């Protein structure tokens, strides 16, 4: 063995590494609980937010523009005449879409069937996000004047309405060992929905549908901020596979663009 090399037994290496890790954990624990003080409660979802979603956001209507900006044509079986071929509907859903009649919805007072959680973020308009309390984000829309409550922890909302019951959780990157949270997403799972439409032209979702969303905030160098919403609708009643969409909003400085309007079935 060359004189400059020292034989290092594996046991010594492991001992040193374990000691180091234990010290790190101890220091980290002290950071959270204080030096010998009582353990601190975990931060509230509001305090632990890895990003600020609050404020006014306006839809940038690009994705599926022709089905969102203007009333989509009634579903027909001939694709060239305006049918949605890209929503994975099953046969039963097709029957319902073919029979869609907005007048009937109006007569039944159900103009908001396309404003339920699975489609509300696709409606051109603005959303306003605030913290209702430390555990709940409130998301309001001016189009259709809808309100979604995104509850961290166990949902208190029994659901059954257009916006169903939503549970929220932060999915963060980083943040270990007392380090800074680098970024994260807001994951929202919504169920207990009142049956409605995935689109204004009567393509249905059922009460068994589940909506899973991820909200991500993107800040551009230079100022603009965007909210990117990635959505999946699972519906064993009307869909043959999960229906995937992504939608984006641009941050607005104030409420000057906020124009509440009622639901419209057309």
């Amino acid at each position, binding site marked *: 063995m060359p004189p400059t090399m020292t034989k290092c037994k*594996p*046991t010594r290496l*492991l*001992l040193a*590494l*374990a000691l180091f*890790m*234990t010290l790190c*954990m101890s220091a980290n624990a002290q950071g959270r609980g204080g030096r010998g003080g009582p353990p601190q409660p975990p931060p509230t979802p509001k305090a632990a937010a890895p990003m600020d979603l609050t404020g006014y956001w*306006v*839809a*940038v*209507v*690009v*994705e*599926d*523009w*022709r089905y969102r*900006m*203007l009333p989509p*044509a009634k579903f027909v079986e001939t694709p*060239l*005449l*305006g049918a949605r*071929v*890209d*929503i*994975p509907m099953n046969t039963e859903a097709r029957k319902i879409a073919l029979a869609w009649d907005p007048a009937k919805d109006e007569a039944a007072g159900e103009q908001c069937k396309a404003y339920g959680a699975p489609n509300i973020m696709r409606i*051109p*308009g*603005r959303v306003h996000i605030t913290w209702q309390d430390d555990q709940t984000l409130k998301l309001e829309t001016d*189009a259709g004047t809808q309100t979604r409550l995104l509850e961290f922890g166990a949902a208190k909302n029994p659901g059954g309405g257009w916006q169903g019951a939503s549970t929220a959780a932060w999915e*963060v*990157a*980083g*943040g*270990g*060992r007392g*380090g*800074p949270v*680098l*970024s*994260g*997403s807001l994951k929202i799972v919504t169920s207990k929905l009142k049956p409605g439409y995935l689109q204004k032209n009567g393509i249905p979702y059922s009460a068994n549908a589940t909506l899973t969303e*991820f909200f*991500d905030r*993107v800040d*551009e160098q230079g100022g*603009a901020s*965007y909210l*990117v919403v*990635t959505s*999946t609708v699972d519906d064993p009643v009307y869909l043959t596979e999960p*229906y*995937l*969409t*992504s*939608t*984006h909003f*641009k941050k607005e400085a104030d409420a000057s663009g906020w124009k509440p309007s009622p639901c419209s079935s057309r």
Partner: protein
Amino acid sequence: MKIAKALTLLLGAVLSSNAFGQFNFGPTAAGSGIDVSGTWHYGGHQDAAYGTAAGALVDYGGIPLNEAGRLSALAWTASRMTLRQQQCAGYGIPYAYFSPGNYRFWEERDPYTQKLIAIHMWFQTSETRRTIWMDGRSHPPAYAAHTFPGFSTGEWRGNVLTITTTHLKRAWLRGNGTPSSDEATVIERLIRHGDRLTVFTTTIDPVFLDEPYTKTMINLRNIKDPDAWLYACEDGEEILSRSEDTIPHYLFGKNPFLRDFADRNGMPLLAALGGGETLHPGFAAKLTDSAAAEKEAMAKIVPSGPQQNSRAVNPDPNDGEIHVLKVQGNVYMLVGDGGNIAVEVGDQGALLVDAGAGKLSDKVVEAVRKLSRNPIQFIVNTSFHPDHTGGNAKIGAAGEDPSLPGSFFGGQAPTGATGFFEDPAHHATLIGHNNVLVRMEAAKLPNEMIPPDTYLEKRRKKYHNGELVEIFYQPNAITDGDSIVQFRRSDVIATGDIFDTTRYPFLDVKNGGTIQGEIDALNNILEKTGYEHDEDGGTMIIPGHGRLSDEYDLSEYRDMVTIIRDRVKAMADSGATLDQVLAGRVTADYDTRYGATSGPWTTNAFVEAVYNSLKQAGASSTNRK
């Protein structure tokens, strides 16, 4: 051993307790955020109709096209795809994500430090190979070549991979002719949620867009690596016996499919024409006044705004320095002194194509000395224009042509009549078409600036520095003395001002330039070029001014010149005066890329040159359709 085992278990427990997002090594330890490695495909539930080569004609809603972008799209016909250079054209970014095939990410890491060097991508459709550099390197200068995937750098911002891409080629935003220019910058953010990858892109294109075009799309991870990764393409003869200067397009206001999409979807035409306002929620309300919407739409299908200037970045740094760019093989491009200079080096003396404007000749000589241990032996002038010949005397004097001493010429010197040959060993030999000599002598320029070594007909060739160098005469293009120079082994062509990425062709009608000669010259060049893969690479082209280019870039320029010729001709044939042609803004879809309202070569001067050239030739004989 028991202690070691116990400690191992303890260490394992400590590590595992920190395994899922709790152990923050920070973004720089491994140099990455989330791992996107693997194979993916477009999850096409939304925007499914916009996949590759799809998209209805005149369906631009939700795209913030400006006037130039809208008019360019309206002039496009699917028949353009029959052109050789369009058949295998690659896909730009972000359009490539719409490919119906799969794509793959894989990482390249330093084997010793494990730092992330690059993330590579391979798109099956169009076989696009893309590198996203993660090592902090800078983007190339503006005079470097462009490609369909462009030049990309990436960084992690939290768990988001943010990619910035420049040096893109002119391509599509949508497969219906909606254009994206070679001046576009694209920013992508890749956000991964399990097996779903949301790609959020911003396209910033000052040439064709009113405002940044933001868009999201979902991609799905493949469970199994797909077997098919190839998509070979080779262009062929799709339309037989078609004249080379036939470029399919629609004249302004004449698109026969203008209303197809709008009518089929029951929407006003104004909505289908796109523009920044169509992205905003309040747009639908504007359509309630159908008469006003129709009136506005009709105004948008023809040029209606003021003439625009180019919004392209000037590729010449204009910093008083000579910038050297390796092209390929033995050839370099020198930028900074007026026209571009091509330099071919090897065992023999350097051969230059053009000598620049002459303001920085000392620095040109210095730059060539760094490339070649031998002196400058030949300078080929592509034209007599001063931005290409201004440096002839000074650079020529710094060189020498060793083929002359002891030769017939050496024996003849000195003579009073040919003072240029008094000491032939100490001057590079200047070469050009004979009309260059004639024009320069007529301008009474000093002898040492004038090429004495001239040719008269189609071609001059010289085997030099290990390759055949061919000089081809291009009659009546920019002037009546234009040449292009082809380096056969290096596979590089220097075009002079026949191709200029910074402006409309500088047609010098007074000195023999013609629009038809220009179009013929561009087509002649395309007869000599080939691409390496899907219209990227292959034969590289050094333009008279502007950035390094290739076949596709030149073909887009050829298309532009030909289309403008057709528009001017159509108006002239119907009896329009020059003023009426100018008022018609026949270049409106190209002005934000090439136009100028002031300076030495304005848009109006170009249109006037085209008009006069056609008039001189007799409008009826210029179009060979």
